[in-house]
């Protein structure tokens, strides 16, 4: 099935991705954000917070945004 994935980590992008039926949010996060800790990200499905074991549905909109980003000094 296909879902909309918006990844605000790094450069940020939005695209449709294929996921297997029965994939939970937790598993999807592990697949997409290698090495990332879920507690360091704001995860929303269809703009709403969901439990880790929420099973993704066709056409869902998943947003992953890091909550710990290092600012910098202007060059």
């Amino acid at each position, binding site marked *: 099935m296909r879902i909309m994935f*918006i990844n*605000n*980590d*790094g*450069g*940020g*992008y*939005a695209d449709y991705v294929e996921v297997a039926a029965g994939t939970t949010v937790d598993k999807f996060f592990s697949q997409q954000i290698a090495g990332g800790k879920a507690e360091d990200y*704001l995860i*929303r499905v269809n*703009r709403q917070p969901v439990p880790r074991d929420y099973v993704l549905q066709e056409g869902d909109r998943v*947003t992953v*945004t*890091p*909550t*710990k*980003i*290092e*600012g*910098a*000094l*202007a060059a």
Partner: protein
Amino acid sequence: MENELSGRRLWQVAGAIRDRLHAVRLSRFHKAQGQIQGLASDLAELESVRRKLSLCVARSWTAAAGSLMDEAARLFRSLNFTSKDAELGLNKPEVAIPNVRDVLEELLQAEEEFEGLRYYPEDQILAIVTDTIELEGIYLGDFEVQLHIAALGDPSFRSLYRVVALDPHPSVRNEAVTHPHVSEERLCAGDAGAAIDTALAGGRICDFFILVRSVLTNYNRDSAYVTLEDWDGAACHDCGSVMGEDDTYYCTSCDNDFCGECSSCCSRCDETTCLGCLETCPVCEDSVCSGCMTRCPECGERLCRRCREEARCPCLNEEPETQEEEKHDADTSGIEDASERGEADGTGGTRDPDEAATPVAAQAAEEGAGEDRASVHTDGLGETALLP
């Protein structure tokens, strides 16, 4: 609250954002149109050169053909540049422009995430307020993140959004720095920069606000305008009092920061120096830094460079005093001798004052009277010399 955004106004703002993004996209097409037009003009000119060159070759007009070759080379260079520029512009990833409902959903989500949205219609500013931010025990207060809708797509990115401290607790070192990564209300987004650009280009307003908040709630010590360690000012290395940036003095001798009370400057080189590193020159009694102190080459006593250059060490003054004493003795004996002679020749010892001041010369003149071969000269120190 007066500027709270809700109901019909939400729709209007969503429409304004969508229109602005649409205008940005349209401007991109306008730019591409201009680039393609430039390419087409160069190609038309090249075709004209080709026809003329064919004629020149057929009629063996070599001089004209040479000029046309130069013209063709110029056109190829122009084509190369224009085509590369156009290719870069055309290959930029296409960002889907959301419809008004999508933007409205973004606004509603932001309203939920931040417990309210603010809108300032006169400046077309959409804003959220963060919770109170405290980093490593330093209270920074809450911030209003202001997005200037009219500036969306504006190349001068710096004016697109501002981070305004609502309960400012700026650094003592720099009042314009209200957060380690905010100076003059501008956030240096660091690692979030690209994601913020992408979110705004796609009209993902809520994601933009969340990304800014993620930067504000974190601290990167290695790249802060002012580090949190120095937020409330650095401590004076001597007395420990907290100092602002304008009240901090760096001692060039010991490489530490000091307050105004604990620092001064070297009387010789004017370098800022802490009181502990200043020495008092025993000769002139000026306060001098260690770099401007030296030793007397004669006696080894410490004194400042100026006193050394001017030979003011007490040990150097001893010799002239001895000479002075010798001169005084010589003067005294000369006057006594002359007085004795005056008594003998009946002048009663009365003498010209200059003569009295140079008794040796006078005596020598008397001894050499009538001799033209040499004259006697005095240098004022009781020494004599023969002049030719």
